[in-house]
């Protein structure tokens, strides 16, 4: 069948050449049948005439195709295609070679701190849990947040709400089961979210098996903790714990003192013992194997203590040594940031890097260390030129903003970090966590929006403590739960740990428990809640979301230059720009009283600036740079377009982590 058909077609091909260069349809065959007779005749003519025609066979074609007018273009076309291919490959290689490193997930997204007790309760026991967090994952989608740090949920007797770990490989039943954790991690990864866990190397709970074996002197656990000979009434030296009183506790069973930098239920691990380092490294592996994306390393500066056990010098030498019982009365020369600490941390980083090899699976490491005036100690956690350490240590300095709230103060605190940070490193910003009063209370609610705007427009990674996105403030709880607060009510951390306010329903939508939640719900929950604010485009959460989306979408905000423009008693103003991009941003934050700012002296700014976002509703859509009015606590994100770059003339006022320029024609970044 097929053969006959092919023959027909080929006959047609010839006929086609003479009579029909275009299209032929099978059913037309009969119509053309009479012509076939003439075909043979014409065919001969065609050969003798030697004129090319459409559908000519090889013999005819070869007579003409060698002509220069066909051969030359043919050759040219062929070589052109080859050259094109080579050029395309060369262009690709050039772009790859010129591309700057791309931002990792922890640089692209803000870090959101979830305090699991207070985030969402799924089983109506009044305390939040892992299943609850899973229920609320869409909240992070809404806020365009990809990195979630969950405060500890290890098995724990809860003397320090999870920071006293009884078993590093189990989930506390209060928060759920290991299955719940696996489910949470899987659904987070499904949504492209990253989970950062708390990792608590300094101490365990006194209920931890290691401690129980250690106090009984059983090898190899005997030296897992720091044991020193002492008597019941006389500690070995004057060292005091962070939570107050001596950091030595006499143990009846072992007839020795053990050392604890926090509660006496939190004995310090002995990191001079290689077995302890190995145990703790194994725990890192355990969670990384499960797929955890990073660790927030708790209280790392406390990990090592001087072996000589000398008394620490008093801040006030004249003070009666017997009254020294709080952290700030001593210089902690022998208990904080001891030599050897960074070797341990660097080795952990090496272990984590093994798991970071898969593309897009960088395992993140962030340090918690309050070093106050000694900022160089904090900066050391960035690592050195020869050994990488954490991706960044938390920057807690913005927490001092409320002490003397003003534009100048804001600039000063931002500059503390920017000036001390090693070159090429990535900054970060924190204004609140479970240990510090909420910024909305310490700075005042009216400044909350401006502070959020600052976090999300400064260069680097902002950290958002749950509730900051809706403007939660401290709550005066009726019953103190925090052990630190029980020691001294002024130190209670409960006010900043109250349940998340989801809606205006029972318990602010946090829990279905009829009687009570573990801490009181804030009285303002009927207006300050996620549901109500999502419906309002001028709410804090809507503004947070807009800024977060903008931060992800605009190169100038995510990895561009950061330059100080102005700071005075009221206003802190800075700009974000990117080489090769016309669009740039000016941020004007009011941390004082109503004022009008005149930036006409900044020649790089164009005369007219367009409002991108104002934290307080304003009618004006554009401002002249000589008259930018801001009211108390207002944040203004202004957009402008110019070819002039501010940073090229003000190198000392500007910072960038890694230089990159934008090439708009190809929509690429390149090293410059």
């Amino acid at each position, binding site marked *: *069948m*097929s*053969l006959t*058909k*092919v023959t027909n*077609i*080929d006959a047609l*091909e*010839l006929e*086609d*050449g003479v009579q*029909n*260069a*275009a*299209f*032929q*349809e*099978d*059913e*037309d065959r009969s119509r053309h049948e009479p012509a076939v007779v003439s075909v043979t005749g014409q065919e001969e003519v065609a050969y003798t005439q030697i004129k*090319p*025609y*459409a*559908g*000519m*066979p*090889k013999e005819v*074609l070869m007579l*003409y*195709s060698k002509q220069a007018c*066909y051969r030359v*273009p*043919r050759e040219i*076309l062929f070589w052109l*295609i*080859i050259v*094109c*291919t080579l050029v*395309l*490959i060369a*262009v*690709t290689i050039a*772009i*790859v070679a010129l*591309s700057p490193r*791309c*931002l990792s*997930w922890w640089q692209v997204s803000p870090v959101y701190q979830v305090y699991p007790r207070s985030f969402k309760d799924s089983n109506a026991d009044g305390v939040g849990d892992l299943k609850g967090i899973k229920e609320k994952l869409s909240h992070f989608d809404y806020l365009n947040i990809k990195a979630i740090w969950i405060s500890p949920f290890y098995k724990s007797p809860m003397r320090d709400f999870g920071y006293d770990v009884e078993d590093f490989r189990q989930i506390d039943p209060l928060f759920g089961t290991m299955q719940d954790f696996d489910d949470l991690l*899987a659904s987070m*990864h*499904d949504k492209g979210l990253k989970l950062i866990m708390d990792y608590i190397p300094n101490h365990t709970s006194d209920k931890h098996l290691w401690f129980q074996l250690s106090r009984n002197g059983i090898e190899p656990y005997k030296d897992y903790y720091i044991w020193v000979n002492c008597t019941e009434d006389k500690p070995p030296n004057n060292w005091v714990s962070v939570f107050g009183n001596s950091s030595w506790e006499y143990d009846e069973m072992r007839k020795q003192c053990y050392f604890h930098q926090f509660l006496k239920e939190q004995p310090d691990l002995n990191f001079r013992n290689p077995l302890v380092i190995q145990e703790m490294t194994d725990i890192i592996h355990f969670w990384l194997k499960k*797929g955890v994306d990073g660790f927030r390393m708790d209280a790392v500066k406390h990990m090592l203590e001087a072996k000589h056990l000398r008394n620490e010098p008093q801040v006030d030498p004249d003070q009666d040594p017997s009254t020294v019982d709080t952290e700030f009365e001593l210089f902690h020369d022998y208990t904080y940031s001891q030599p050897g600490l960074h070797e341990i941390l660097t080795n952990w980083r090496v272990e984590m890097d093994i798991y970071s*090899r*898969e*593309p*897009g699976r*960088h395992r993140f490491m962030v340090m918690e260390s309050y070093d106050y005036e000694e900022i160089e100690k904090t900066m050391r956690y960035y690592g050195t030129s020869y050994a990488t350490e954490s991706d960044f240590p938390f920057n807690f300095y913005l927490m001092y903003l409320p002490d003397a709230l003003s534009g100048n103060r804001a600039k000063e605190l931002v500059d503390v970090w920017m000036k001390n940070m090693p070159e090429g490193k990535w900054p970060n910003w924190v204004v609140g966590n479970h240990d510090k009063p909420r910024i909305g209370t310490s700075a005042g609610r009216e400044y909350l929006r401006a502070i959020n705007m600052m976090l999300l427009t400064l260069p680097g990674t902002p950290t958002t403590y749950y509730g900051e996105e809706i403007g939660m403030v401290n709550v005066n709880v009726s019953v103190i739960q925090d052990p630190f607060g029980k020691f001294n009510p002024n130190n209670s951390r409960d006010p900043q740990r109250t349940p998340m306010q989801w809606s205006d329903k029972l318990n602010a939508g946090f829990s279905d428990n009829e009687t009570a939640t573990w801490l009181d719900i804030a009285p303002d929950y009927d207006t300050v809640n996620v549901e109500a604010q999502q419906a309002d485009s001028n709410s804090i959460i809507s503004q947070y979301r807009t800024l977060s989306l903008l931060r992800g979408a605009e190169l100038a905000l995510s990895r561009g230059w950061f330059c100080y423009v102005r700071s005075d008693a009221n206003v802190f103003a800075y700009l974000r720009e990117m080489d090769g991009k016309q669009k740039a941003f000016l941020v004007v934050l009011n941390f004082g009283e109503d004022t009008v700012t005149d930036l006409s002296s900044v020649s790089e700014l164009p005369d007219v600036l367009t409002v991108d976002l104002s934290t307080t509703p304003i009618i004006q859509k554009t401002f002249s740079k000589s008259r930018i009015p801001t009211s108390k606590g207002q944040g203004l994100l202004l957009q402008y377009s110019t070819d002039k770059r501010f940073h090229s003339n003000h190198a000392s006022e500007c910072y960038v982590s890694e230089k990159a320029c934008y090439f708009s024609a190809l*929509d*690429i*970044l390149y090293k410059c």
Partner: protein
Amino acid sequence: MITKSGGEYPYLMEGFGPVLAYLYSWTTVIVLKPSGFAIIALSCAEYASTPFYPGCTPPQVITKCLAAACILIITVVNCLSVKLAFRVQNFFTAAKLLIIFVIVVSGIVLLAQGNTQNFEDSFTGASTSFGAIGLAFYNGLWAYDGWNQLNFITEELKNPYRNLPLAIIIGIPLVTVCYILVNIAYFSVMTPVELLQSPAVAVTFGDRVLYPLSWVVPLFVVFSTFGAANGSCFTAGRLTYAAGREGHVVRILSYISVKHLTPAPALMFNGILSIIYIIPGDINTLINFFSFAKWFFYGLTCAALIVMRFTRKELHRPVKIPIIIPIVVVIVSCYLVLAPIIDKPEIEYLYCTVFIVGGLLLYVPFIHFKFNWTRHIMRPLTMHLQLLLEVVPPEKIK
């Protein structure tokens, strides 16, 4: 049953007549084949460039430049020599089998070392709903799509009656076995959850098992996609050629290069369309909507088989298959065409249908009625192109 090149086309032609066959070649020649080629080239480019951008997506320019280069290289190779194209294909297929071999062997080693924890309760949490099974079929069949490619080159097979079934009989079980073995290897280092969440399972496997040689996996994946692109180009050329021969697209597309004995015009046409398809921003999504068209034609082809069982009883059938198979395929195709549309009706399906039916707009004036003026344009154009490219109409099959 039909030994001509061109995949489903001859079946549709015999079974349902020229209009449907025309619509098939119209959709396939203009959209399905070149876009398929473009997509494979794009994924090859993406695989080749991602290792240089750990943690983020490479800029579009790079993937597009590389994809274009890939299309050009493959098209040139295919135009120059069938033999060379075959060698390229063999080399890259061998590379693909080699990496599969490496993965399987390292998987077996790991299993021998006792990494079997992921095989306990393998089916816990498996869902058994009707829709899920349909989806599983869809994805499963996609993996075996290769069987269909042979149909496009039937004429170029030596002794097709023997070799075509042989290729399928060897090919499908080979693919099946490799597929299963590779997945077993994956499970030796990954939990089912990790497997599902890995953006590129083989790469993850390489990172975990083959380090510090983990770079071989992405490299061989690039090889594999390049080979697939070559195969796609090869078959696309044949289909376009067949359609041109039937007069359903301009005839010059069916011409053969005098020097190289390749369907050069068809290949070039396909290559040019493919390059056009990689230029716009996100072609993938739109192209995905055309996949329902693909299954529509698969179904029709099998329906044609059934029809011909009754209308063309006299035909010689070198390979005879039980009638139940085409019936099943028709039913499955109906399901696969209708399910996504009913499940998530979107306006794009309508656009695709309009585009396919829109082919008739060209069919009526150019093919059915053949207006005179079209010849005046096409004839000199064909002639000059013929001379430029040194192509002639195919000769008789001896």
